[in-house]
């Protein structure tokens, strides 16, 4: 099992979510993060003083999948998240050793994605 972590733009999330859903991967988690990288910051002005923000808002997408599904997930993210401008983000793949479904207490790759058919394929 692997965890795919992607730092992407807000606008790219909906297309990614929709394609992943149609591919049988409805299960994922996102959170609001702020990132810095090659992208430039912005400077704010307030009553004569300045404030510069080097961190820009991003969405962090986390999705744990079976090893063989990693390329599908990564490709889908890369496809929709790319605008070609700096700040498009990064995708990382981390190892996962075990997974449990809370509702049932089951463990293993079967619990990773919600759709029965996905599970069946496993």
């Amino acid at each position: 099992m692997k965890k795919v972590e992607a730092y992407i733009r807000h606008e790219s999330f909906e297309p990614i979510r929709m394609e992943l859903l149609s591919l049988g991967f409805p299960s994922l988690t996102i959170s609001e993060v702020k990132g810095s990288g090659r992208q430039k910051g912005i400077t704010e002005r307030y009553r004569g003083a300045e404030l510069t923000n080097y961190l820009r808002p991003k969405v962090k997408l986390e999705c744990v999948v079976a090893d063989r599904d990693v390329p599908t997930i990564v490709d889908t993210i890369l496809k929709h998240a790319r605008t070609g401008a700096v700040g498009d983000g990064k995708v990382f793949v981390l190892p996962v050793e075990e997974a449990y479904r809370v509702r049932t207490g089951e463990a293993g790759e079967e619990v990773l994605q919600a759709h029965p058919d996905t599970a069946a394929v496993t």
Partner: protein
Amino acid sequence: MRRCMLVRGLVLSLLAALFIPSAAMAQDGPTVKTLADELNTTWIIVAGVLVMFMQAGFLFLELGFTRGKNVGTMVAKILVNFSVSSIVWWMCGFALAFGGAAKLVGDSGFFLGFDDTISGGLIAGPLGGNGAAFFFFQFVFCAVSLAIVWGSTLERIKFIAYPIYAIVFSALIYPLIAHWIFGGGILSTVGNGVQDFAGSTVVHLTGATGALAAVLLLGPRRGKYGPDGKPRAIPGHSMPLFGLGVLILWLGWFGFNPGSTLGTSGGRFAEVVVVTNLAAAAGVIGAALTVWFKTRKLDVGMCGNGAIAALVAITAPSGYVEFWAAPLIGLIAGVIVVVGVYAIDKIIDDPVGVLSAHGLAGIWGTLACGIFTSPRLADFNGIGDPGLVYSGSFKQLGVQAVGIGLAFVTVFVLSYATFWAIKKTVGLRVSEADEDAGLDISEHGMYGYPEQFIPAPELVGYGAAPAPGHVGGGHGRPMPATTEVTA
């Protein structure tokens, strides 16, 4: 006071007839009498408009004490309640309250029209501009009383309960009490009359009693009491909005009490302004000191509650007491509200403290007349007797207690019955799932603060990023080109 107005009206008519013959012939031009009428009307309308704005005060006070998931419903609540009450008061409530001089209820003025004639009471005779102002002023009092009711029911009541109870309240419950005390009904015949200048009992205790009936049938919010039965803090989401509410209410009270002179005669309303402000100020100080000594922290909500409780308490005596009594009455109200909230919170979940700030303080204020009413003002208003400190007699205190008792019992019985019927039919409380999700999304289909609850990427919504040529290429899009700096 109200009686006094009647008298003045008579005197005026006589004067007009006897001493100012020109009034008869110069029909188109203003006379002293018409000007006096117009000035009274102006003040009543100005005061009424200030009282109307107290709706915003109640809204924001309650919003401040509510969690962010239940804020939109409060806005809809205040609009719907005020509106239903407006129409029902015009259809029926006003007629029962002020449409006649009978002991129980009035009998004229249903579906009030400008050409209607009121059969008796304060504004007996053709309605006219002054009567229209009186109608409006009394309506906004009814609406204040109704707004008070809901403070104990926040964050769990079904919306449908609002309009149903609003109808019963505006058509019957409030008009009964208003007629009995303000309109020349039975309570103005107990002793020399119950003293309640602007409604500590009529408006505030009535509202708080409705709130008590509601909360007894409704129960506490989920999570208010821990497994050990001890109350847990469910902090409201915004002290700034609470502060706005308190200040708007304080403002509105300058219409509420001084407007109850129903005119500008003798500049009496200016005295009432001073009395009202002194009491409110002392209420803040009383509550602040009390909560400080109890907890060594200055609870912000309690400072505001202190102001409200003192304003409620001074409402009845505001036309009856001298300046010096006002800070005393207010200070005690400030202490009462803190002690009351702390005690009641142990057993009843009253999110904004309406039972203390309007109930206990309303009782205290009504009783305070029996203690502090000055001979000068009892005489001026022509209602009741001087209070204990002047007369040494407990008589007026007793009369006040009778007024409180009758009002409380009447309102409680009628309100409990109404809420009970609502509970048994359409239901009084939302489901647990709806309560957890919040009333905004469950009853109104949208959060009151969408950006707090809806995931940002779903709020943005539009699909993939535009083609590079669409925006200045090379810029990250969510960033204004003009403000970029080099990393």
